[in-house]
């Protein structure tokens, strides 16, 4: 057989199943020249892992969450370990099912209005001074920030494992709390495009 002169349409004639699939893929991905007029700005997302129940960590969590939601970011706060206790209803004093869980709640009073400071707690003197200073300088309280965040649509996601370990029931928690989730859910959110993630 002499050297064939390939005609234009035979250059990409698919011979095998694989080639046909590849060719189909190429054709489907061919760019169309339709102008993209809307949705130019991608949806941005902020994911915070709130691990601590201390005043000086919950505050930045709530401030960043509020700011992000105000800027139109989809904002999600995963609350885990001690970070779950601020999301127990304020009026709950003792939570848990067994004596050890109850003891933990006694030692670390749950609720957004009962946060301790990580440094200089001094049996409540640190948080009291923090509260006085906050009011003096008109800084929003954790409770106000939590209510503002809920109003702006910040999604709070409790950690299922921590709920179980602390013996927390749904009715112990604030109404705005979402369904309990696990680590894989959070990781999936954190690895989405246009997403900032914080571990506070």
């Amino acid at each position: 057989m002499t050297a064939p002169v390939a005609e234009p349409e035979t250059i990409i004639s698919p011979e095998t199943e694989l080639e046909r699939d590849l060719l189909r893929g190429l054709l489907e991905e061919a760019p169309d020249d339709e102008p993209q007029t809307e949705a130019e700005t991608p949806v941005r997302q902020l994911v915070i892992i709130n691990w601590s129940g201390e005043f000086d960590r919950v505050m930045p969590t709530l401030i960043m969450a509020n700011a992000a939601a105000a800027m139109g970011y989809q904002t999600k706060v995963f609350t885990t370990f001690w970070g779950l206790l601020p999301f127990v209803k304020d009026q709950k004093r003792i939570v848990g099912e067994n004596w050890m869980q109850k003891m933990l709640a006694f030692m670390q009073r749950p609720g957004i209005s009962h946060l301790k400071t990580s440094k200089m707690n001094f049996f409540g003197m640190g948080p009291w001074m923090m509260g006085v200073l906050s009011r003096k300088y008109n800084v929003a309280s954790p409770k106000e920030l939590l209510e503002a965040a809920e109003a702006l649509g910040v999604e709070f996601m409790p950690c299922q494992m921590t709920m179980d370990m602390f013996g927390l029931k749904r009715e112990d928690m604030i109404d705005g709390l979402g369904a309990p989730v696990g680590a894989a859910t959070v990781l999936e959110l954190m690895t989405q495009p246009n997403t900032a993630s914080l571990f506070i």
Partner: protein
Amino acid sequence: MTLTENNPAGTVKVTTLDAKGLKCPMPIVKTAQAIKTVGSGDLLEVLTTDPGAVADFAAWSRATGNTLVEQTLVEGVYRFVLRRK
């Protein structure tokens, strides 16, 4: 008044939000809530005493697409005028 000069008919509504005395992040939180109450193309005037708001309102307007039309400082009060997109 510069705010309505592009709209001589005076159809642009100006709503004022008093956020004086509030600290970060409340000025932009209140602004985000207030901007929803004004119509597209209308103006929201925000008054604040937080010096951090200068950078924050610029960032907020870039992120949300609402235009920062005017910004002044008079006797310690920052005034931001935002046009809703």
